[in-house]
């Protein structure tokens, strides 16, 4: 079912477009009058960057009524696109000439790219997690994996005791222990692949043909635990990426603000 376009997105989008059109027209006018339009576009861009940073401040100030974070996120996204267009208007091209300006531009592009990356991740990954059918709190994942491993090892010991055969134990030590040790097949989980399932159907269950009925029953229980762990691994990597991309985005944003402040000082001291 198609999702409704939020009203705030339409409103902020129209406002951003109108603002950009007005700025573009004004900067052309200043240029035609042999003035320096970069002062107008530069200061506007600086204010825009500060406004973008306010979203993070909003998160820290949940105790006061500053509006819904949903509206703030939409504002942040629209403003981010606006800032990119304004950046090109300000620099007059995609890549500036001066070394410092190149550093500033590089940081700006990186923070923009990380923002787009994060936004897309947040759109794509939640449903991938939901489809695992389990829900787990990120901080609990190491304990959950340890618990699954312990249950698997209990089954291995039970199998050895019950049948007197070491086939399952040998396979566990030689192959499955690697899998149960820690999260595996992270890239496949992140990109929606089924490498873990493929591995479990192949090397992971290679010993099955050598087992008797009693061993097979217990071995299948171990494989069920392995399948459960694949879901936990998917949560580990997807939840981890959704949390950690901010460790890239926020420091980059701070560096852009810092570089922009210095850029502003330099411009005010030496150019104006």
């Amino acid at each position, binding site marked *: *079912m198609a999702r409704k376009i*939020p009203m705030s997105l339409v409103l902020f989008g129209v406002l951003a477009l109108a603002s950009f059109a007005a700025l573009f027209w004004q900067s052309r006018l200043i240029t035609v009058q042999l003035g320096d339009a970069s002062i107008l576009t530069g200061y506007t861009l600086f204010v825009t960057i500060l406004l973008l940073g306010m979203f993070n401040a909003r*998160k*820290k*100030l*949940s*105790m*006061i*009524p*500053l*509006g*819904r*974070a*949903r509206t*703030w*996120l939409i504002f942040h996204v629209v403003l981010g696109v606006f800032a990119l267009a304004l950046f090109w208007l300000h620099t007059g091209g995609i890549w500036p000439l001066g070394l410092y300006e190149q550093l500033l531009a590089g940081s700006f592009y990186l923070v923009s790219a990380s923002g787009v990356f994060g936004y897309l991740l*947040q759109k794509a*990954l*939640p*449903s991938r*997690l*939901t489809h695992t059918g389990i*829900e787990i*709190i*990120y901080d609990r994942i190491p304990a959950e994996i340890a618990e699954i491993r312990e249950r698997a090892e209990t089954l291995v010991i039970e199998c050895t005791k019950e049948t007197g055969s070491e086939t399952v134990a040998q396979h566990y030590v030689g192959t499955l222990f690697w899998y149960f040790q820690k999260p595996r097949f992270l890239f496949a989980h992140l990109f929606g692949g089924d490498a873990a399932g493929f591995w479990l159907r192949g090397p992971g269950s290679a010993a099955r043909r050598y087992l008797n009925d009693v061993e097979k029953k217990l071995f299948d229980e171990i494989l069920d635990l392995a399948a459960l762990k694949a879901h936990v691994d998917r949560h580990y990597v997807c*939840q981890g990426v*959704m*949390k950690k991309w901010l460790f890239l985005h926020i420091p980059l944003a701070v560096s852009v603000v810092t570089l922009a402040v210095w850029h502003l000082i330099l411009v005010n001291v030496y150019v104006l």
Partner: protein
Amino acid sequence: MERPQRWSTPFGPDMSDADITSLFERDDIAAIDIDRFPKHTPLEGVLRNDTRIVRYRSGDIVVREGDYGNSAFLVLKGNLRVVLAPKLPQSMLGRQNAKKKGFFEALSQLWTNSTIPEVRNLSGYEQQGLRGSSDSPDARVFLQDVPVVLNNHRTAMLREGSLFGELAALGRVPRTATIFSEDDAVLLEIRWQGLRELRKYDQGWRRKIDQRYRESALKNHLQESSMFARLDDTTLNAVADKVLFETYGAFDWNVSFQRLRERGSSQEAPLAKQGDYPDGLLMIRAGFARVSVQHGTGDRTITYLGAGDHFGLGELYAAWKNPDIEDMAMKTSISALGYVDVLRVPAPILEEHVFPFMDPPADTLMELAEHPVSDDALMEWAVEERFVNATRAMVIDLEKCVRCDDCVRACASTHGGNPRFRRHGKSSENLMVANACMHCTDPVCMIGCPTGAIHRSLQSGSVIINDMTCIGCATCANSCPYSNISMVAIRDSNDRPITDPESQKPIMKATKCDYCEGQPGGPACVRACPHDALKRVDFHDYNPTGSM
């Protein structure tokens, strides 16, 4: 292990033979005809197992207005006072004074929130009129200056032999008045099971209880329904006289629900079955009922009914309108979801006073049954898990949730640094009902709180806990069928556990979501979600695919 019996856990374990003998010597008990009680439920057994003798000191609050309770009281000795007007302030009742925080007060939480979990300022606890601790059976809130209360408030006296609290106990409705002990008093507290037996087997008690209900609440209840709104007082009284009171399921359904859920089974008391002949309109007074229709080899839930809803009108109307049609059986079944209290209005009453003046009712139930089964999956799940009890369930759309925990952090930021819910819970498809207080329509957690610390806010309707008068007995946490109340050990500002000086046991407090009572801007969790994934919903109005 022996199968637990009806009286395996007596209400008052200290009821002695002497107590029972003295009770039988009283006129109000002696008047009961013991022969009418069946052998398996003798009156002596009811008194021994379903009642207890409670002693109150001067000023002790016996029941508070707005509280939920599962017992009634018979005054054995002493005088009690019912507060008529003006009402006692919330703080006197051991409740929280819900004051809306100002902007700067709310902002100050940014630096006043502690990094130490569950820190409390001890000085506040000393000013409470609180008697006893979590270990003592008579822990309660008391009025510190009874003469002043009597001077400033109009009250009515309850003397020896008075019975009170029976309507709230049997009808699952809030207590309508606050009653305190004027001097040292002795009361017989009768739990709802015992009260039910007394009403069932003794005509005197039944007459007394029913009469009081008919006088105090039934007429109002009937008038609230559009069907009876046009009736004049005399006709309404005539209708009220014919209405039958019925209760299905167990009052303490939460206990059996928890047990049955662990066993993966459920039992629901039927009110009416598909195919039965309709003999009266069922009006839900309290609790919930499931309406189902046979589908394949099972029963398919098509809707659920709560207080104010009714069942069977369509069939009764059709039977009256078309008396020649033979097949006038019920098209659907109805069963108690845990507990339901209904009024049965006999068909002849409707035929005489209601049907001639009303339009044919819409057959909405059968329309619902025509939907594909998959459309009802969410409701079926919500009914099965009893989430229908919620007025503000925290529902998270897992297809949108990025598991950022901004909601948890926002909750902590408005509760002294301690989150009051867990972003974890039962899921159906992409929806998860998180472990956050749902502020239930039927708040079973409020039953049995000895100090009334857990109560419904008069301002917002949220169920909140007054930390100052919570004695940490865990009655509420144990009663909550959804495990949404946590017991926490409190600490001082130096990160030292606060302990009881006598027993050295840690002081515990019950904590839960208070729906950001007193915080400006409403629930912080909802506002903090950047992806619109978290909502607080009443399942009756919830449509996850559209707007609420």
